[in-house]
């Protein structure tokens, strides 16, 4: 039941289509978005574990999207995607809370490895939160209402 729910956000339509097909072949549940509005719509409706985010996503830039995603859904792990020339932006993404970055064009197996790592971290974080919640409630059930 622990399928990885991935959101691909990139301005390049062709990249989106090909990557999505390759990932779906590997049994991942993939959503794709081409700009900030689509990202927001998907995040509101779907459960997402890991997001691959291009630094040059249209409307605002990728870092702006990263900031808002991390603010609204802190548990979603984000991997920045960037061409070599813009690597500095991808790295700045890490400061803003991205899990990792990938330089485009990237190998699908690299992408998959990093996505799975990110998913593992998200699950570990959720598990930690659950444990802490339970620990707090055991002393007094009233803590559940906080």
């Amino acid at each position, binding site marked *: *039941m*622990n399928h990885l729910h991935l959101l691909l956000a990139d301005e390049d339509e062709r990249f989106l289509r090909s990557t999505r097909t390759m990932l779906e072949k590997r049994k991942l549940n993939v959503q794709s978005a081409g700009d900030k509005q689509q990202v927001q719509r998907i995040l509101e409706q*779907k*459960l997402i574990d890991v997001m691959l985010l291009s630094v040059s996503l249209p409307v605002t830039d990728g870092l702006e999207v990263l900031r808002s995603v991390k603010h609204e*859904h802190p*548990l979603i792990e984000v991997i920045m995607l960037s061409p070599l020339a813009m*690597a*500095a932006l991808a*790295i*700045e993404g*890490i*400061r803003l809370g991205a899990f990792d970055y990938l330089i485009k064009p990237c190998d699908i197996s690299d992408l998959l490895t990093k996505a799975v790592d990110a998913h593992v971290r998200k699950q570990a974080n*959720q598990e930690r*939160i*659950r*444990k802490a*919640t*339970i620990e707090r*409630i*055991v*002393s*007094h*059930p*009233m*803590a*559940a*209402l*906080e």
Partner: protein
Amino acid sequence: MIQRHKLSETASPKPSTILVVDDEDHFRTALRKQLSNRGYTILEAKTGRDAMARMREKLPEVVILDQEMPGLDGVETLRGIKQESPHSQVIMLTGHGTTSAAAEAYKYDLFRYMHKPCGIEDLMKSIDAAIREYNAGSTRQSDVRVSPRQNLLKRMAGVHNLRPGVLLLGLVVFGGALLLPASENVAFQAKAMTGTLICAALFWATGAIPIWITSLLIGGLMNIFGVLPPDEIARAYTGDAMLFITGVFVVLASVMRTGLDRRICSLLLGAITSPARLILFFGPILAMGAAFFPEHVLPAFLLAALIPAFGNLVSETGVEKNRQLAVMMVLLICFTANIGGMGAPTGGGKNAVMMALLADYNTPPSFGRWMGLGLPLVPVTALVVSGYLWLVFRKAITKKTFGDLREIREGLRPTGRMTPDEVKTIMVMTILFILWIICGNKYGLSGPVVLAVVTLALLKVVRWSDINTIHWDVIALYAGACVLGKGMAVSGAALWVADGVLALSPASLQTTNGLSLLAAFSSGILTNFMNDAAAVAVTGPVFLSMAGTDPWKIGMAAAFAASFSHMLIIATPTNAIAYRLARSPEIGTPLITIRDFFLHGIAVWLLSMLVLWGWLFLGSWQWAE
């Protein structure tokens, strides 16, 4: 660009301080000129150590840091700076940087990374951004410190573990109890004890102060008002039953550490191969398990595994029947686990408290005796409850939803063979139960469990660090409950309240059967509003003091009914965990609501109570004798 720069200056009336750290003198001088012209205060440092010294004089908003320097290098200096002043924003400059060095630096909260030589306008942009980030960071912190003004009602309600209003109410009630009109047959100590009882019940129920403080407060008040001499109070805090429940918690700590709880839960879930088995086996077997693994151990694990999985499923498919099945499973787990508490003295702190109370009136039942009286009741009640839930939710159990449940179950299968530590724990526990059942009369409750703890420690299954994970505050609550019971009995307060109850109740209820009905009813109601053990401590002494020569039936009826904390989500940790996990943000719409608990809780409470009353009336007690 210039406009933006001006904006940031007007935003902060004080000129921002910038620390420039670089070993090249001419670069520093050039940068200082540029920055001073723009109205910044400049500090300079030649090396990393130099920079740290400067930071101690004055904390800069922004640090411009060269990556390659003699002595401390850029990343080391960055770490030092962040330790000294976490809010200061660092911009790192480098002539020969690689991205991997940058990635390393970002781990330590670097603000930005720039290549040297960089245009002064680019640098200014970064400095502006860094100052904004610095200001945002310090406001975030001051947000935490300055609490907004609250109205009086909110301030009185307070927060969990500090509720001034309830404390005040407690004080008033206590004072009121002391000032009750004097009467010949009621000692002053009895009034003080009654006031203590109400205060303790109030504080435990609302979480007005941490539960362990309430527990200590009881002993403190009893000392001040001379209910018992200090030595006796200390003895009431400990005793066989308390050492027993502490030992049980240590054994459970090793169960959880070895992962045995995970394996047991997987086995339990594995039993759900058909809807019939879900109803007929899962509930009763979980209930029996909960009799030997007290409190939240089994249900917490099951809920933590099932609720997120169901949450995923429901938000993915949006099928209403899946949600219904999830609600049914959660309620089934909570209700049957609560019911399991009746089965054995290990079923929870409430049973230990009842054992301690009975020890004051008479000899308490042995472990095996309790099991003989309580355990048969567990599967029967659990079956009735499962049957009710099946009737209500039967439409949600379809081939499709059951298939989904099976898929969830597959994801929770135990992995690998049993570890040696798991095997050791099982063996020690088996021997422990045999000792309890066979030698209970001789060694009491605590003797065997202390031996078990020693054995587990010698086998290196349990370590001191595991013992430290025990919730000592909960154990303190049980101990406080025992002291409360003892104080009620000794001071005559229990008898006083009991006289009141007798005066109010019809003559037909003033038999052993009638009183056990009343005891079960009162403790069954109270347990929904406070900790189970606290409910036993409040009702137990009162009803035991009416019991005459044979207090077992009445005492155990009260202890059994204390397991029926089905209605409110705050009635027991298990319910609260279910409610809280079902509201986790990753689940989307909450899986289960307060209303679900309340409505089905009332029905299940009534059914449980009927089974218990039937057991008291229809002579199964005599049969068990």
